[in-house]
């Protein structure tokens, strides 16, 4: 067990080291000299060569790239992500300030998705190949194919502009949560429902379920006491990947609904060419995602001892 955890920890540290490298190099994806791009973002079009020169020195952009990287990592280790190039706010403080909005949206969406997906997946598996099952799976295939930006606009059109039931943007009251959480949650539900169905079908075909039937247990007990416990394990661990999906989807949903979260912060800073904010957001998201995957893996190994032996691919 400890060996497994140690191995996963070592792998995650390598990944995070790689992630810092990619996040750092984001500055060099943009065509042109970073100092000039930053100066443009900060002072506008009317630039003098000396302004760019001063900025290059002030931001340490005159050092060789690998030195810049090392300095940047040095700051990182002290949890210093630098300051926004546009507003001069502290990057980490800004991200942490936006985190609750994104986290709340993610939790609400996860709830929506489970409320739809678990009943649909379980019923489909219990009535395999029935009309209900085919219907659910068809709807979920359509669901996977609906882009969340379109679903968001459709919900705004229907519930905000036509029926005036919920606000179309903003953040604060419970009513503001409804449309964004529905948008993000339903697209996730489509996937979760399919996974729940597949997983439950697999478990229901196993010998211990047949044995339980042979012992004369009623279907209700078999489903709730025996089958679901094992069937939901992959669904729960899948939450790790769902978390990634939510972080990615948040970028789009937060932009549509003007939700003050990390996703919108990232998009806004891309438009503003705010390199340090982009680096900070990307790094924060990737590290959060890596750590949550690690946590899920460890949890999985604790819950299901078989994993430790056969999950070393």
């Amino acid at each position: 067990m400890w060996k497994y955890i140690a191995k996963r920890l070592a792998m995650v540290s390598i990944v995070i080291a790689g992630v810092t490298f990619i996040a750092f190099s984001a500055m060099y994806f943009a065509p042109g000299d970073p100092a000039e791009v930053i100066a443009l973002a900060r002072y506008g079009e009317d630039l003098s060569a000396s302004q760019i020169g001063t900025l290059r020195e002030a931001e340490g952009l005159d050092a060789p790239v690998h030195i810049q990287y090392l300095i940047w990592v040095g700051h990182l280790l002290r949890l210093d992500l630098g300051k926004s190039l546009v507003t001069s706010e502290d990057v980490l403080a800004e991200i942490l300030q936006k985190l609750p909005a994104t986290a709340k949206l993610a939790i609400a969406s996860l709830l929506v998705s489970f409320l739809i997906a678990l009943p649909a997946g379980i019923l489909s598996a219990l009535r395999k190949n029935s009309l209900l099952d085919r219907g659910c799976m068809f709807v979920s295939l359509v669901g996977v194919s609906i882009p969340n930006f379109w679903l968001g606009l459709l919900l705004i059109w229907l519930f905000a502009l036509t029926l005036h039931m919920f606000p179309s943007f903003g953040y604060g009251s419970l009513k503001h949560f409804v449309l964004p959480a529905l948008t993000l949650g339903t697209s996730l539900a489509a996937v979760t429902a399919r996974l729940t169905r597949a997983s439950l079908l697999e478990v229901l075909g196993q010998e211990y379920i047949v044995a339980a039937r042979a012992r004369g247990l009623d279907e209700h007990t078999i489903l709730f006491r025996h089958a679901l416990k094992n069937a939901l394990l992959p669904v729960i661990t899948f939450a790790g990947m769902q978390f990634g999906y939510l972080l990615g989807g948040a970028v789009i949903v937060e932009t549509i609904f003007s939700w003050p979260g990390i996703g919108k912060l990232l998009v806004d800073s891309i438009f503003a060419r705010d390199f340090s904010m982009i680096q900070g957001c990307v790094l924060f998201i990737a590290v959060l995602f890596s750590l949550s995957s690690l946590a899920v893996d460890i949890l999985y190994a604790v819950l299901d001892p078989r994993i430790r032996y056969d999950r070393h691919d």
Partner: protein
Amino acid sequence: MTDMIEKIKLTEKAYLAEKRLVFGEFRKNRLAISGLLLIAVLCFLAMFAPEIAPHDPLAQKLDSRLLSPSSEYPFGTDELGRCIFSRVVYGTRVSLGIGLLVVAATSIAGTVLGLLSGYMGGFLDEAIMRGVDIVMAFPNIILALVIAGLLGPGFSSVVLALALTQWPVYARLVRGQVLSLRKRAFVEAARALRPSSFYIMRKHILPNCMGPVIVLGTLEIAHVIIFAAALSFLGLGIQPPDPEWGSMLKAGIPYLRTAPQLTFFPGLMIIFTVFSFNFAGDGLRDSFGQPANQEVLAR
């Protein structure tokens, strides 16, 4: 010696025959066939866009702005009086083009890396797999968003951003396939006879990996098309006036109340396209007898 080679060929033939049944299955699979028919319709739209579209997709006509659907404009007109139907039809070219280009590039690169990783093992395997992990540490669309956003909008940035971020799925899949194929008798026998790794990979392993790669590639076209549309929707991909579904949606937002047709039809077209590829991919997967892949589903 020749005897042995014959025997190896026989075992591999038996294995391949088992796989060939797949295509028999596929023909019986109505899901997959209807998916392929839908894809054929899309290709038809893309190829004959100039013949199908009733108007020039870029032609502005300011006296006929924001018209509702009519016989002249089947989907109505947009804020500059352009025919939405014609723009949607031309948009097929952009989306299919991005989808096919990205999937062609990433499936080839990912397959080669996966083969090397699985077959060679050792340090190379570690290096490639950690590369895969690093790219996959950026969930969903995040990395593509940053690359495309910073490269600047346009067709080539979208393709490059998606290509750089989508190859790891194939590498991981192919590596898994190679690891299980390596244990097959015909591969072990071939290794005993033919020392060249390259020959074995090309002749025995690669052909047997193709099925799952084709399934994944089909589903990936759907993902790539959604991602590309999302980038354009955010304003970081294809820019107006080029007809692209995502950017058409973005342009329609201010008119959502008065002229919902601006957002409605391009969105339906994305759904139709993505659904076709998902449908075909699901059908293919069923006929290959593969279990639903969590990672593929999750993206």
